[in-house]
């Protein structure tokens, strides 16, 4: 089960029997727009606060994922979820609506893979036949909590990132059809002393590289084991730093395709997103919407999704503290004979 220092290699690989993705208008206009299940044209989703809108995204994604798996919510034994808001209210309140036994987790934007790794562990260990992982983020709630109220119209530097409005959920089963989760690497907290919350990509890149190196070392594999390795939301600034760090540490990342979800979800030349996408939903909707669809279509066989998170709070950076970061990696396979 435990491989190396920090990797779980699942003996009974849990099957991702269904996923669901719900996004906002900007994501719908992006290059992956057709791959999402629901695209909302209205950022408010008809709610009277951004927080309620974010919660609704999560509820819709979770409900749809259960429907897609042809299950009822009573059969899904555990829901592992988290988000960016204080006290992870979006997921906790969505779990109130879903009334599925709930494990709330926080890993900032790495929550997508943190929740998937934990749900996989639950199913693989036999603790449940079905478990669901989910996460969400909303541009306006994130701006309000971490930066400035949107009405304030504050300027953003080009290194800033655009928080994805969306939610993704995945239902895991002990048996069934679909891609399987073969391994997960839980990251260490890495802090390189960056204090600028408008440059999260640069802060998170070393954490992503650290986790990918640990994953390859623990499993004794090379990057070309995977058809594709994606990081969660490093965006253009962090992606470049990650590529440089791979070269510096002698990781032959060029043997495979390496990309970043924050660069895939938007058209950076046409959409006003500065360095690219960020937020829990960034890696969640790209992985659950786009990448898993490509796996089911047989275009990809083995992928490694490395969700990156900046573990800051508004209070910690206002007090001048640096930004600790983390990354969790989940390996997914489809159509590979064991």
């Amino acid at each position: 089960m435990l491989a190396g220092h920090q990797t779980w290699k699942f003996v009974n690989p849990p099957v991702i029997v269904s996923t669901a993705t719900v996004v906002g208008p900007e994501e719908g206009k992006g290059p992956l727009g057709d791959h999402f299940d629901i695209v909302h044209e209205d950022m408010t989703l008809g709610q009277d606060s951004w927080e309620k809108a974010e919660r609704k995204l999560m509820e819709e994604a979770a409900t749809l994922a259960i429907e897609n798996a042809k299950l009822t919510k009573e059969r899904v034994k555990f829901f592992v979820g988290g988000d960016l808001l204080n006290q992870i209210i979006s997921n906790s309140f969505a779990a109130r609506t879903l009334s599925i036994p709930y494990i709330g987790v926080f890993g900032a934007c790495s929550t997508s893979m943190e929740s998937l790794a934990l749900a996989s562990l639950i199913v693989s260990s036999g603790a449940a036949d079905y478990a669901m992982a989910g996460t969400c983020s909303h541009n306006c709630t994130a701006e309000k909590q971490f930066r400035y109220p949107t009405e304030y119209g504050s300027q953003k530097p080009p290194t800033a990132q655009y928080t994805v409005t969306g939610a993704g959920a995945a239902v895991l089963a002990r048996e069934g059809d679909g891609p399987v989760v073969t391994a997960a690497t839980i990251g260490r907290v890495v802090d390189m002393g960056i204090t600028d919350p408008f440059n999260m990509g640069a802060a998170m890149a070393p954490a992503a590289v650290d986790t990918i190196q640990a994953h390859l070392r623990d499993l004794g594999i090379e990057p070309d084991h995977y058809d594709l390795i994606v990081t969660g939301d490093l965006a253009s600034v962090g992606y470049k730093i990650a590529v440089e760090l791979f070269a510096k540490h002698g990781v032959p990342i060029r043997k495979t395709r390496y990309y970043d979800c924050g660069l895939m979800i938007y058209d950076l030349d046409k959409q006003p997103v500065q360095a690219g996408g960020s937020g829990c939903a960034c890696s969640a909707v790209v992985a659950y919407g786009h990448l898993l669809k490509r796996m089911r279509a047989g275009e990809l066989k083995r992928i490694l999704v490395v969700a990156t998170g900046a573990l800051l709070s508004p209070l910690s950076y206002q007090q001048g503290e640096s930004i600790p970061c983390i990354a969790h990696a989940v390996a997914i396979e489809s159509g590979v004979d064991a």
Partner: protein
Amino acid sequence: MDWMQFLWAFLVGGAICVIGQLMIDVLKLTPAHTMTALVVVGAIVDGIMIGKKSLYDRLIEFAGAGATVPITSFGNALVHGALQEYKLHGWIGLITGIFEVTSAGISATIIFSFIAAVLFRPKG
């Protein structure tokens, strides 16, 4: 009409904005810190006397709206009010005079904020 007045207003006002932009981009100050720092700078510049007039007053004479529109003129107005009242009422004037000249701007801010708050529901 003195067309050069327009040019100087444009250049001086623009230069003050460039300083503000550099404070945000290079010094990484928040917009709020940038604004308060520029108010303090305006107040200090108004305290520097050259002959009978302060440095900021001379800048206003030279650049007109280029010096009165940017936020630095608020610092200038704070000091002006305080000194004016000081001359009339002594030390207590420093306290009572601060909002003497700026009261129009502050009252307008409060009134228009109130109207905006009544009419709109900000969601942030």
